[in-house]
């Protein structure tokens, strides 16, 4: 998947200590009876971000989104949007608009009337409403369908109407609830790019809720991974993927190999971990500030693995596992190898198919050496 090209001078406001967050979620908790849906969440979202709330079902991401929209009120804590405390403010008085998962288009109104609805509530003059609606329909390329009713449109078209309707009021914050869920794969890809472009051209702050990591990684400038009502980690897609702060996050995003071991050495310039599971020592080229002798896990991504039938030149025996190839999944661009180590652990390696040979250089039941570089491992204490 190609990453959409971002302008090189892209601001990263979360790095700027002087930046004021546009949306401040302060120690928000939401309870439904005994069930805690959102547990003491604090989050800052900056203006112009494309922010993703990523998590499985029951993670609390949708509840959090609905609290931003005003359909639920926090049991504890406060939410500020552009400096204004939103406690007790109903949805129809917030500078926030939402794009619903089911699109929620009014079936008894035309496309035009749907998009104009929000502007009518504000009491704008008719001429202005007409102009803005036309402009918005052009932006989503639905100008020709203005008079149609929702049931006369295809799924993709309905989605664009929903988007137009939520953008036309130029809200400070746009919330999107699983925006790509109902679309088929090809449409999903196209729409991902469209959404990012729209967000960049309008400059509106987007908050997207999704369970699909690819979606989040492709579109978002920053992601908050949620788990059972709390935030596991907040960061850019790269940070989340390459520097997960916990086993949960490491396993939630993409695939990962986890090795358990005991810390043998911890210096400022390296960490050495003895792992029975991997059958070797795990060497990482930076310090980890972990007490010696503690039990930790090391995460290594499959694409960082290399496979070879010959032993590696490095004789230290570090970051080296031996095993037998049990499964190969050929995906065209890459092949996924499952290698069973002598210890019984299974290692997953993703190898790009750089040649055009129809017979694989390494095949089932081959004995192979699995190696990875010193920078590849991530030490996880949780």
């Amino acid at each position, binding site marked *: 998947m190609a990453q959409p090209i971002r302008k090189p001078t892209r601001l990263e406001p979360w790095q700027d200590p002087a930046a004021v967050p546009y949306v401040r979620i302060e120690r928000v908790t939401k309870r439904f009876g005994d069930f805690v849906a959102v547990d003491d969440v604090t989050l800052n979202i900056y203006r112009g971000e494309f922010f993703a709330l990523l998590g499985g079902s029951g993670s609390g991401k949708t509840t959090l989104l609905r609290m931003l929209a005003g359909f639920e*009120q926090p049991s504890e804590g406060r939410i500020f949007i552009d400096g204004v405390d939103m*406690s*007790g*403010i*109903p949805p129809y*008085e917030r500078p926030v608009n939402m794009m619903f998962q089911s699109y929620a288009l009014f079936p008894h109104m035309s496309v035009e009337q749907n998009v104009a609805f929000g502007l009518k509530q504000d009491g704008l003059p008719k001429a202005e409403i007409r102009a803005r609606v036309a402009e918005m329909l052009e932006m989503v390329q639905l100008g020709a369908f203005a008079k149609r009713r929702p049931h006369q449109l295809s799924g993709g078209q309905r989605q664009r109407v929903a988007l137009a309707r939520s953008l036309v009021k130029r809200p400070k914050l746009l919330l999107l609830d699983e925006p790509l869920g109902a679309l088929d794969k090809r449409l999903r890809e196209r729409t991902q790019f469209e959404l990012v472009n729209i967000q960049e051209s309008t400059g509106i702050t987007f908050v997207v809720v999704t369970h699909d990591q690819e979606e989040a990684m492709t579109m978002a400038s920053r992601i908050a991974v949620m788990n059972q009502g709390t935030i596991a980690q907040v960061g850019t897609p790269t940070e989340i993927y390459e520097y997960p702060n916990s086993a949960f996050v490491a396993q939630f995003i993409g695939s990962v190999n986890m090795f358990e071991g005991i810390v043998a050495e911890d210096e400022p310039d390296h960490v050495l971990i003895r792992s029975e599971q991997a059958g070797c020592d795990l060497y990482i080229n930076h310090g980890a500030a972990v007490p010696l002798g503690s039990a930790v896990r090391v995460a290594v991504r499959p694409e960082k693995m290399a496979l070879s039938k010959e032993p590696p030149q490095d004789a230290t025996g570090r970051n080296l596992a031996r095993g037998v190839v049990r499964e190969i999944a050929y995906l065209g661009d890459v092949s996924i190898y499952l290698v069973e180590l002598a210890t019984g652990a299974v290692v997953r390696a993703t190898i790009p198919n750089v040649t055009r040979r129809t017979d694989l250089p390494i095949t089932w039941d081959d004995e192979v050496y699995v190696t990875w570089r010193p920078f590849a491992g991530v030490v996880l204490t949780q």
Partner: protein
Amino acid sequence: MNAIRRFLSLGRGLVVGVPYLWLALFFLVPFLIVFKISFSEAVLAQPPYTPLIDWVMGEDGGDLKLQLVLNLTNYLRLLADDLYIAAYLSSLKMAAISTLLCLLLGYPMAYAIARAPAERRAALMMLVILPFWTSFLIRVYAWIGILKSNGLISNLLETLGLTDGPVELLYGDVAVYIGITYSYLPFMILPLYASLEKLDLTLLEAAADLGCRPWRAFLTVTLPLSLPGIIAGSLLVFIPAVGEFVIPELLGGPDTLMIGRVLWNEFFSNRDWPVAASVATALLLFLVVPIMVFQHVQGRADEGEARR
């Protein structure tokens, strides 16, 4: 900011308040009054019952006292006189049998419609509901013409030579069973159909795939899953049938004892409002449990439909 939330609940409170008050006044309060009057005595006056609470003069013209008279004779009469108990039991029996008949006839019909091709289902259901929109009274009346001696069936049997003279099927328990089943059939079919229509046919395919014969599949898959419909339909028939008046009055005989008739006669013929009130109270007590079961089933059905 919280003022808005409070205003919202106030607005909602006002909105709900209107039907709430209406029902409280015209549905709940009357029951309390019925209960109260069941303790009165019948008198020749306007209104024809003694007041429960009254001011009375002291024995020797002394202080005015407030007197509460709870007359239990009405209830004692209910227990003592065989008529009432027999009528209650008879009503329960007749309602139960009619419910069963409705179920036996209604289930296959509902099932057949649910399994019909989708385009035809609406029309078929409409055919079931159409009689319901025509006058209930008149449809019951129609059976008089069919069941009486020299009525349709009687003439038919005579013409076929199966009987020697006119046959009187009317004015008996049989006619009442037919009448109740006939009138309440749509009430049984509707919830049954709703339940059966939701049945996932792939479940039956899975059962067949696993080696289950059709009849067995019906007993172990379809029937249990349509249970909510069966319960709802049965309650919708049974509860009102217990207190039914028009059908036993038109189609039943002097021996056909149903509590609805007893209540009516006490009120209109004997002009004994307090006894009628006690009959009503007792009937209501009988029905409280089934009514609550019905409300529970209704409530669960609604929640099942609702999406968050």
